[in-house]
């Protein structure tokens, strides 16, 4: 993967190519968002979950600050934290995102509480923070270069929301508007830093890998959001039964017998191709109000069942 990395120009081209090929503007969920195909529920789920990502950004930026011994660097980088957190309560990117949440019909306090963030989204975002924690300044800045591609996606997104999702009030889109100029400014600065400081091929390779990793993380976030909006359905050829000997839920498939314990029967009974995975998780929670949160377990179980061929996922519908 070192082709072209001998020259600064080749290095920059390699970084930009990653964006072309792997940035989440190509993710099916984003493509559908921009084509106006998402349901209200999907938009809400995305906004609620993406908020978790937003909350991690200033944390990782704080970590990056602490990695630099240069006052010039810190003076510049700290701008990002100001952008996100604002100079006082009621300002900044996080606040604007909450306004978006309200505009799409979510409860502000609920979103802020992070109580319903999906496990897959949490994992993806935490992985980003951990990446920055465990890698050096250069790689951390390189990972942030997805901003290079963010400006364009915001322009597309604003147009898509205005055109396809008129039910979202215009004030809700202020976050996107703010990013159309912030992201390219930050990215130019970050890019210059990376180009100047990665002057060996191994360093450049590390930067490329960091940016790829970051793209994977953003991709994983959308994967998780997309999946909970689908409607799981037990495949018609599966035989779901309650075992005569054990009383446990058993699923028989062409090539395997699954012995399932716990609430798997209750979950599978709800996989009728009508309810979304998220609704199934909520229903299960409602059925066990005294217990701890079951959403994580439900989503992990559904993933496992899909992998084993017991359920398939139908796309979301309005």
């Amino acid at each position, binding site marked *: 993967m070192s082709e072209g990395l001998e020259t600064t120009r080749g290095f920059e081209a390699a970084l930009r190519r990653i964006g072309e090929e792997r940035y989440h503007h190509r993710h099916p969920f984003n493509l559908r968002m921009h084509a106006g195909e998402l349901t209200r529920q999907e938009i809400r789920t995305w906004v609620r979950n993406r908020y978790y990502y937003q909350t991690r950004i200033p944390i990782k930026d704080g970590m990056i600050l602490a990695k630099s011994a240069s006052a010039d660097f810190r003076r510049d980088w700290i701008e990002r934290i100001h952008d996100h957190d604002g100079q006082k309560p009621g300002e900044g990117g996080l606040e604007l995102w909450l306004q978006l949440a309200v505009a799409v019909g979510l409860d502000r306090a609920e979103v802020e509480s992070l109580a319903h963030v999906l496990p897959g989204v949490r994992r993806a975002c935490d992985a980003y923070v951990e990446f920055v924690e465990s890698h050096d300044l250069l790689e951390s800045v390189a990972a942030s270069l997805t901003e290079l591609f963010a400006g364009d996606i915001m322009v597309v997104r604003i147009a898509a929301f205005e055109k396809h999702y008129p039910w979202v009030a215009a004030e809700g889109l202020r976050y996107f508007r703010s990013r159309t100029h912030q992201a390219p400014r930050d990215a130019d600065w970050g890019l210059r830093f990376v180009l100047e400081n990665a002057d060996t091929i191994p360093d450049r390779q590390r930067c490329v890998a960091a940016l790829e990793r970051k793209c994977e993380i953003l991709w994983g976030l959308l994967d998780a959001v997309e999946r909970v909006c689908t409607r799981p359905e037990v495949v*018609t050829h599966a*035989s779901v039964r309650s075992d005569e*000997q054990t009383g446990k839920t058993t699923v*028989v498939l*062409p*090539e395997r*017998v699954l012995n399932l314990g716990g609430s798997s029967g209750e979950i599978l009974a709800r996989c009728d191709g009508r309810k979304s995975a998220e609704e199934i998780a909520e229903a299960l929670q409602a059925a066990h109000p005294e217990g701890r949160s079951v959403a994580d377990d439900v989503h992990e179980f559904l993933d496992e069942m899909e992998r084993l*061929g017991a359920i398939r996922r139908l796309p979301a519908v309005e």
Partner: protein
Amino acid sequence: MKAPRPYNLIAELTYRCPLRCPYCSNPLDWKAVGDGLDAEAWARVFREAAALGVLHVGLTGGEPGARRDLAEIVRAASTADLYTLLVTAGTPIGAEGLAPLVDAGLRSVQLSIQDAVAEESDRIAGTACFEGKIEFARAVRALGLPLVLNVVLHRHNLGRVAEIIRLARELDAERLELANTQYHGWARLNRAALLPTAQQLEDAAQVVREARRAGPRPEIQFVLPDYFADRPKPCMGGWGQRALVVTPDGSVLPCHEAGRLPGLEFWNAMDRPLAACWAEAPGMNAFRGEDWMPHPCRTCPERARDFGGCRCQAYFLTGDAARTDPACALAPQHDLVVAARSEAEAELVYRGRAP
């Protein structure tokens, strides 16, 4: 010893088969064994199996389609409340022969194909059958049954794994089993001609990884052949643990090769209740659980995963079924497998030099 509950019955309905695959693991003397159990006897086996806790039956052979009373047998299995999987090469059932089986309660089909291209597939099968198989696969889906495709991989088709996956997608297969040749039965005789090289396997593994990334279906199973993995495969969920095989003449075995191990006494479902054949036959108990295990399996942390490997392979390679499977890198006789592997590499070099 208290026998565990079996979940899966492998019903070998016949050894007859119209194909002639060089890696077939059926006994070499299959012609000498007739189809001992009639449909009524199978019906009894199915009922007894269900009472033992079995939920799933694989109707296999040879070629189960070679039996004229197949529909009756399928009906008996489904009446016993077993989930049925027909394991077939597609002929002689044919697309038209499927509907009566579905009416009789057939739930799913595993179809073996030999390759993704007709000439190669027919060459391996020893007869022109590829087009018929494709038609058969489409009929399976048209009738709403899930389709499992099984392709035995070897040196001559490993390079076409991508095409095979494409074909599986196109046929809307639920699952694709890319089985690497096991070197028992006929395949032992042809071992040197079939063994793939490590590079071939590595390339195929890469193709499989990419295909898996593209989506969950078809589920792709790809297992390295024993000769190239450094741990043995878990055998049928453990000897006499989860599955039982009933052969065309009624013998009850832990796996379809086990009947060929000398000195093991298995019982016959025609003579005794299936429960006794499963729980009490001396052969069934010979390698059940962990008490029989030799060093190093006895204390190995992986023994619950692979159960010490394949008894039959241990026997074929070392002459003693109670040894650690030489496919395991920890086995005292692992060098036997290493030698076989270099045999494959050596032959390839020789071929490469030929004009």
